[in-house]
């Protein structure tokens, strides 16, 4: 219980502030939890590890939850993970039940967040304990598995793999570090770049550039339209909400929370996959799903409990294996590195206090989110009105501070923002995927060390298959994820073909 002495009033205030700022970011369409964490990183430079974590976890929980506000009120998902919230939330808002819909979402979010926190608390130490025994061979295969899973769950497997390998390539720019047992020589650059890129691209400027600057470029291209007027937002009367909405919905709530937690654990898979999966499961398994899509609270429950459950799930592989579960936890890895903490199998056993502090922050942030959103939702809903011409310049400014201060004042890190901002913009425009690219970038250099060092000591590729039973299991999992992707592709193609004649028939009937 020593960790209790680490919790002071500042800790709780920072977690609450994080949740509030996160909700605001999440509520503004086009801004995500990832962006909230990336933009607020400079504030943690001056804070200690525990206070910094309180702020960042608050931002994470708040950012994921905030997306429900514009989803319900404007039919625009504030974050990708609230896409399915629009299906039932907006019809309810149109019927004048906006506040009722939001309150259902808030309670579902709280339950999802807490269930996933419990799973994280129980499961992460076990996984970490198990993975401590991993040698370089298993560690390489874990990274390989992570990249395969991301690719196989991408909308197109080939594009997913391609994006991931580009990320790995970018991570190799710089020296083959002597501290990792390399020979200290630079590669993948011209001589004149050496002063700038000797240590490669810094992680945080890359992340802030991809998630901050490229979002702004994408908006600028569309003309930074606000298109919102006060009249458009209909929050409705508070009356009509009671807990009886949840009667008979407990199975849905718990199932969706577990789906969210599980999807969160898979690396690189965002909240949209979690909420879409939970929503379709509810539609398939519920006794009466005829109202779903027309304004049924059960749809909101499925969607919101799943996307908040993502938070705890995504932290499991981060804290036990050092592999981020989604793009926000990828930015969190940067925050840990900044504080001199290495996440991986040894993190929980060696930093037991930090681990308990994190759990406290996560649970507390969920409650703060609940109270803020449940009682102050009317006022928070107004933030979606903040004009972007005020907000965007401030975001660029905060991105600059974050990038410049990370290595104590290196101007090249600021230029990295622009380079990766433009790269992130192009990647999204030509249809490549950002999440696999980022995970490839984060894991690429470790993958190199594990792979090359293994071959240097054993001298044969067969070691990757024969080292241990765990290696064999990992190979089976890798093959299974590829097979899963191929089966799903064939299934959707068959469904598409079956749908085509039907739609043609309808057209003919109409004409």
């Amino acid at each position, binding site marked *: 219980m020593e960790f209790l002495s680490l919790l002071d009033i500042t800790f709780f205030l920072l977690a609450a502030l994080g949740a509030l700022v996160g909700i605001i970011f999440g509520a503004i369409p086009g801004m995500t939890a990832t962006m909230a964490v990336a933009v607020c990183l400079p504030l943690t430079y001056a804070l200690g590890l525990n206070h910094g974590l309180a702020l960042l976890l608050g931002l994470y929980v708040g950012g994921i939850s905030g997306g429900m506000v514009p989803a319900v009120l404007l039919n625009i998902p504030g974050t990708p993970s609230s896409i399915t919230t629009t299906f039932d939330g907006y019809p309810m808002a149109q019927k004048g039940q906006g506040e009722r819909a939001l309150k259902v979402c808030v309670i579902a979010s709280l339950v999802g967040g807490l269930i996933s926190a419990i799973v994280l608390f129980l499961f992460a130490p076990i996984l970490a304990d198990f993975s401590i025994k991993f040698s370089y061979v298993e560690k390489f295969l874990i990274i390989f598995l992570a990249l395969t899973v991301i690719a196989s769950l991408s909308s197109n497997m080939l594009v997913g793999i391609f994006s991931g390998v580009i990320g790995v390539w970018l991570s190799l720019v710089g020296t083959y570090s002597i501290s990792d047992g390399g020979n200290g020589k630079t*590669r993948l650059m011209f001589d004149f770049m050496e002063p700038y890129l000797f240590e490669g691209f810094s992680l945080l400027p890359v992340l802030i550039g991809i998630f901050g600057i490229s979002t702004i470029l994408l908006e600028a291209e569309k003309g*930074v339209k606000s298109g919102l007027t006060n009249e458009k937002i209909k929050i409705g009367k508070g009356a009509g909400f009671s807990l009886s909405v949840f009667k008979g919905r407990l199975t849905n709530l718990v199932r969706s929370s577990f789906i969210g937690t599980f999807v969160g654990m898979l690396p690189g898979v965002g909240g949209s996959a979690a909420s879409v999966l939970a929503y379709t499961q509810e539609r398939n398994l519920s006794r009466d799903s005829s109202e779903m899509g027309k304004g049924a609270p059960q749809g909101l429950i499925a969607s919101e409990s799943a996307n908040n459950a993502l938070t705890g799930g995504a932290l499991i592989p981060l804290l036990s294996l050092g592999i981020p579960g989604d793009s926000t936890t990828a930015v969190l890895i940067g925050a840990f590195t900044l504080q001199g903490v290495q996440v991986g199998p040894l993190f929980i056993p060696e930093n037991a206090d930090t681990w308990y502090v994190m759990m406290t922050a996560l649970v507390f942030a969920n409650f703060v989110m609940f109270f803020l959103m449940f009682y102050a939702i009317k006022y928070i809903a107004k933030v979606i009105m903040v004009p972007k011409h005020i907000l965007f310049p401030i975001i660029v400014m905060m991105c600059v501070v974050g990038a410049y201060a990370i290595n104590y004042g290196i101007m090249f890190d600021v230029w990295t923002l622009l380079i990766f901002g433009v790269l992130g913009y192009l990647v999204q425009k030509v249809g490549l995927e950002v999440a696999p690219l980022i995970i490839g970038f984060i894991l690429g250099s470790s993958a190199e060390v594990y792979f090359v060092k293994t071959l240097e000591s054993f001298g044969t590729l067969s070691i990757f298959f024969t080292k241990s039973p765990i290696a064999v299991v990992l190979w089976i999992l890798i093959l299974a994820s590829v097979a899963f992707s191929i089966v799903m592709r064939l299934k959707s193609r068959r469904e598409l073909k079956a749908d085509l004649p039907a739609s043609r028939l309808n057209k003919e009937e109409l004409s």
Partner: protein
Amino acid sequence: MESGLSTLLSVSIDFETSHLFFPRIIHWLLACLFLLVLVFRVIPFLAAVRRGEHSLPIIGESMDVLRFFGTLALIAAYFYLMAAIGNLFPYTGYGFLFVSMAFVLLMSLLYMHERTRKNLGIAVVNAIVAPSLAWFVLAKLFNITLP
């Protein structure tokens, strides 16, 4: 047969060139994947563009040219001038403070759709207050290095 397989799988890495070993594999992988993407994605996509079903990304889409390239130019100028002016007042963060004020104001004006007196007033106040607040909290209270 077995010895043939084991020689096929055996690898020796020269330490002097070990920094190029993994990048070489990645290059081959990238080249193969690029070919596959070209055959299965790019060529069918271009065929669809020719049939008029899709438009080319970036070039074929409508774009707010002024705001997009204005943003790029403003950000580049912001980064460049920040360092240049910052060098005139080292270790004070003034480069960040003053150039940010100009940047925030210009970017607000660029993105503003209705230039009413009220909107302009808010933008000017924001351009003075936001950078000052960020500078004060980060550079003065938290002692964070700023350009």
